[in-house]
């Protein structure tokens, strides 16, 4: 059978009514003309020639503006689409600067090692063509020891990542004297990645970098690039704590793209059950790959990567060992070698289909893919555009399909395409002054240079914090200076990316004589993914976890071939420590403040492939996970609820459904990742609680606890942050309480399901038959008073 081109395939689908009836939006984004400007007069002839060799004879308008502003010494943030030539916006001023003054140094920061490698090759190419003696090096954990010395002295452009800057460069700044004394440019790409916890850490790393620069008398210009976010200027200024110019008008020509929102059909109207998003995604991917249309499929979880990879491998690779690489998975947790092999396979088109988490969302060079299928809304508008951008970075035509899942956020996006296409996407938020984060970085900063009494480090009064650290014995004050006075190396004690820097290593013991490490799992997810008896999957190979040894940070597994996977069950308990804010919205009391959260994995379910049938349970005995954080919550007086014509059990179901809805909507309102928040229903006293996990899974009840009586609790819904100390989301939710409740009301009211479904209050089977009705009654009560 002749292979179809992408256009032919699309035309065929568009005439297939069974396909088109599920399309909620089909946007053809037309190609657009570019807007150009000549090279600036001051451009070095060598650079002019080098650019000419790459076929560049003029600049896009945004590039021209960027290089001019940087030349004037202004910090800039560029917000232009993928493939709009952002790298030239920093490479031109940096290389020009070095050509004019050979001692000039520049620091490039990319969020991942892979991205740094990739960008290094690009700068390298340009430098080679200028024929000038300019050293560009990546400096990261993989850089061999003997090369480091040369890089410190001779690297004009040092390409690294924030983690290395934090733990490898700043604490050894004296060895980098040459770099810091001559540092004129700092380039930060993928700025929007630095939000939430990572961003809060990163802002502190920038504070430390600025301190070191001041010590050496340097005052570099910052050049930042970001995907389209709503507040790029504000975000950049918050991260850098200095004024930044915004450039957001792209002068680059744009290729055409078709963007489809696909909402899978409702298969059971009574239960409000939609077809799983995996199903249409799998079908589309199969057809595209069959036609040799190179396709990337993004899923939102590691588990789904493995499940979908297994489905596609079953289809394309069974019995054809030669074609084994035609479809492959890709996610964090795969070892670097495997990842490099997959990336290369994508570039030379040996791999025709790749199923990935957002690990491939950033600009790692994987060549020109033609189609992108997103299984589920990636959680933010910026991430959606970025994932869609992985298809057709250079080629003319491309396709992006967003397949909505049943959860409220996806449904809201799918049913309100204008929200996506017309509104500016998410806000990046950080809280660099989160006390725990700040304390970590104060320690590292004091290690790097003693603190003077009059110094500033962020918005807080650091004198008190320094006093605290002095009292703890890690700092020693002499006159007006605090000196590091401990044996430790504080940068090693904190990872910028997660709460707990510890990892659990997964060891395959199938071959007795040859134990092999097959993956790494971060500490917190280890509790849910590699607990005893779990089925863990890598590259769609299943492994049975024989034991999880938390002390030695190892999970021992062996290969198995079973027809199910496992899904962990957790319970959560929240206790209020202190209220920061309170407002009375009769009859409801709304508050935000500090809470203590206890979470525990208590068991797991076995779920059968394809049918998703529940085929068994098991217990898990793992220690509790404690979390001290901030939360937003509201309490409905029991008398008020008692006035509703429902039983107590039904009211609890209704609260549950409402919490489900609010959790998802808060993530959307805040434009945060849903996993940045969690929810819990309980009593402010913490004496009883009942819980649904982040992914909407349910626990029957809490072992060994007696359900409370009718009159000893006031039901409270907690939406809390999962980072210790919080990063400011709770306060925002508190401020937007009315908006949140109103959107919940409209979502529940307009949902076509009969008794609740995953798109509003959660699936009926899990939340109970009356949940939707009761939740509706509760919000009405809250809104109408």
């Amino acid at each position: 059978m002749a292979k179809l081109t992408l256009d032919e395939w699309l035309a065929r689908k568009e005439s297939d009514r069974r396909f088109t009836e599920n399309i909620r939006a089909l946007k053809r984004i037309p190609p657009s003309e570019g807007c150009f400007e000549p090279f600036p007069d001051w451009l070095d002839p060598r650079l002019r020639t080098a650019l000419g060799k790459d076929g560049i004879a003029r600049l896009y308008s945004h590039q021209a503006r960027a290089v001019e502003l940087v030349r004037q010494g202004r910090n800039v943030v560029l917000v232009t689409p993928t493939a709009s030539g952002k790298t030239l916006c920093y490479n031109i001023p940096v290389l020009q600067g070095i050509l004019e003054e050979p001692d000039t140094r520049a620091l490039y920061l990319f969020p991942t090692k892979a991205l740094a490698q990739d960008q290094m090759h690009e700068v390298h190419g340009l430098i080679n063509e200028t024929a000038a003696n300019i050293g560009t090096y990546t400096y990261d954990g993989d850089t061999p020891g003997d090369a480091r010395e040369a890089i410190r002295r001779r690297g004009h452009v040092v390409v690294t990542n924030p983690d290395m800057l934090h733990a490898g460069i700043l604490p050894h700044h004296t060895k980098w004297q040459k770099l810091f004394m001559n540092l004129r440019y700092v380039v930060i790409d993928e700025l929007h990645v630095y939000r939430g916890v990572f961003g809060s850490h990163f802002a502190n790393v920038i504070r430390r970098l600025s301190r070191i620069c001041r010590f050496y008398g340097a005052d570099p210009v910052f050049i930042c690039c970001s995907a389209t976010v709503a507040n790029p200027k504000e975000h950049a200024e918050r991260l850098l704590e200095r004024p930044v110019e915004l450039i957001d008008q792209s002068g680059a020509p744009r290729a055409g793209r078709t963007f489809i929102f696909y909402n899978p059909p409702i298969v059971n109207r009574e239960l409000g059950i939609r077809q799983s998003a995996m199903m249409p995604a799998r079908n589309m991917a199969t057809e595209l790959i069959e036609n040799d249309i190179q396709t990337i499929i993004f899923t939102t979880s590691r588990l789904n990567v493995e499940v979908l990879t297994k489905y596609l491998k079953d289809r394309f690779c069974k019995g054809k060992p030669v074609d084994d690489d035609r479809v492959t998975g890709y996610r964090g947790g795969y070892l670097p070698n495997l990842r490099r092999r997959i990336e290369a396979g994508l570039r030379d088109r040996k791999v025709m289909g790749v199923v990935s988490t957002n690990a491939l969302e950033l600009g790692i060079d994987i060549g020109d893919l033609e189609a992108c299928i997103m299984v589920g809304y990636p959680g933010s508008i910026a991430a959606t555009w970025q994932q869609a951008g992985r298809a057709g970075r250079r080629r003319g035509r491309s396709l992006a399909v967003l397949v909505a899942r049943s959860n409220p956020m996806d449904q809201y996006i799918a049913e309100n395409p204008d929200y996506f296409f017309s509104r500016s996407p998410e806000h990046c938020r950080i809280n660099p002054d989160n006390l725990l984060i700040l304390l970590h970085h104060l320690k590292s900063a004091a290690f790097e240079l003693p603190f003077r009494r009059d110094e500033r480090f962020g918005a807080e009064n650091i004198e008190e914090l320094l006093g605290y650290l002095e009292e703890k014995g890690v700092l020693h004050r002499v006159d007006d200076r605090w000196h590091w006075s401990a044996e430790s190396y504080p940068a090693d004690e904190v990872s910028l990316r997660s709460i707990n820097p510890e990892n659990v290593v997964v060891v395959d013991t199938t071959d007795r004589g040859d134990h092999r490490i097959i993956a790494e799992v971060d500490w917190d997810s280890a509790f849910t993914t590699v607990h005893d008896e779990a089925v863990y999957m890598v590259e769609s190979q299943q492994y049975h976890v024989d034991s999880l040894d938390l002390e030695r940070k190892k999970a021992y597994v062996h290969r198995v071939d079973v027809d199910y996977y496992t899904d962990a069950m957790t319970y959560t308990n929240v206790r209020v420590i202190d209220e920061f804010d309170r407002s009375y919205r009769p009859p409801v009391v709304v508050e935000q403040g500090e809470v203590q959260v206890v979470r525990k994995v208590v068991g797991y379910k076995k779920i059968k492939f394809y049918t998703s049938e529940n085929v068994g349970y098991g217990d898990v005995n793992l220690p509790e996970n404690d979390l001290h954080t901030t939360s937003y919550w509201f309490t409905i007086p029991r008398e008020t609820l008692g006035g509703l014509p429902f039983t107590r059990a039904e009211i609890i179901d209704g609260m549950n459904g409402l919490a489900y809805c609010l959790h998802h909507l808060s993530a959307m309102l805040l434009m945060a990742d849903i996993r940045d928040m969690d929810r819990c229903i309980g009593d402010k006293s913490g004496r009883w609680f009942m819980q649904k996990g982040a992914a909407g899974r349910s626990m029957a009840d809490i072992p060994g606890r007696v359900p409370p009586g009718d009159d000893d609790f006031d039901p409270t819904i907690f939406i809390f942050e999962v980072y210790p100390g919080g990063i400011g989301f709770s306060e925002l939710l508190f401020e937007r309480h009315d908006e949140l409740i109103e959107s919940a009301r409209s979502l529940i009211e307009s949902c076509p399901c009969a008794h609740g479904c995953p798109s509003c209050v959660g699936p009926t089977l899990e939340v109970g038959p009356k949940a939707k009705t009761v939740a509706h009654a509760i919000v009405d009560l809250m809104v109408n008073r």
Partner: protein
Amino acid sequence: MTVMDRLKRLTGEEEKVAGKGGRSEIVSDLRRRIDAVMERRTQRIAPLQERVFREDGAKDILEVVGGSILENDRGACLVRDEVLQGAERYGKMTVAEMKRFAMEHLALLARDGRLTDLNPRDALFLDTETTGLSGGTGTTAFLIGLGWFEGSSLVIRQIFLRDFADEAAGLRLLREIVKEKGFLVTFNGKAFDVGLLSARFVMNRLADPFGDLPHLDLLFPSRRLLGHRLENCRLGTLEEQVLFFRRRDDVPGHEIPARYFEWLRCRDGELMRDVFEHNRFDLVSMAALSTHLAGLVDADPRNRREMEEDLLAAARLRLNRGDEGGARRMLEFLLQEGQWETMGLVVHEAARELSLIHKRRGEWDKARRLWEWMLEHRLGDFFATVELAKWCEHRARDFKGALEVVDLALERGGATPDERDDLLYRRSRLLRRCGRDAE
């Protein structure tokens, strides 16, 4: 709300809210976590054995260790001077003997020819005591020990930072002394002390005096020359087993940072007494070790060494430094004079090294005779067999002879399985070549 209030609430240090029972219990876990954040690393380090010093009875450090406060344009620091007279004995050497090293030998040890133009009195021995071993800009050298020869005496000067504010003055003084001297002698100073001090100069905006000052780091030649007969090459081990010098009540190195932090807190000079002593012994040992190592590499093989292995090691060091002639004289001496019945391994190794020198130089006859001699005395059978077989096969084109050599080795047995495989493979190839010749 102030930062401290928030922090105290986070850590549970302040029982602010009355009537909230169990709050301290709730936050005690967080408190533990924050404490763990603060102390994660230090926990691994052994705590002070037992505090024998107390604050109320704190003794003035000047009374305890002596010395005086020196002031210069960058501030002040404590300086303690001591002259060790030539007749004083430490282990097997007197102080006067410690100076008896030839500069050409030090140049060989340091792999730096510039040393031959210098004089023993240009040597600056250097050893620091620091606030930690992790490196990075947060580690400070709080005690900088220096030593040099004046006449037959060894002068010890210790620069001590009473706290961090003394650092600039201490470094300024160090810089002045370094500039007067011709070369540096340390133990592991290349990897540690000098890099650390260089960072401190940068931090205090002072020019780094070390630059490309010649530097003999005794650790590397100690490993080469003595590593073969010691369990490790720590300075303490070398002292006991090579210099025959034993310290009494020495403070363990890993305790020193904690002692200094304790000193910063309570200012009891007693805490520092052992640290000064420890540092002083390190310097004396370095001086003695320099002379000992220099003697080991002396070109004259008749010069008495304690052990035959040391002469072999010296020959190998000379080989490594490109002095084949010197190495050869030592090896030949070992083979003539060595009592090979008891010193089998040394003689075997010496014969092997020497035969390889002959082989490199194309002195085939000498090489062949050594291999035959080794086989005759059953020294290093496999090595000698293979070398001799190779010589027969490729040089003399005597396949039968080669075959005989291999057969003899197989007959004698004693080869490891890998060696045996190698011999069998060689044998089958030789059989083929013999057969082809016969045709």
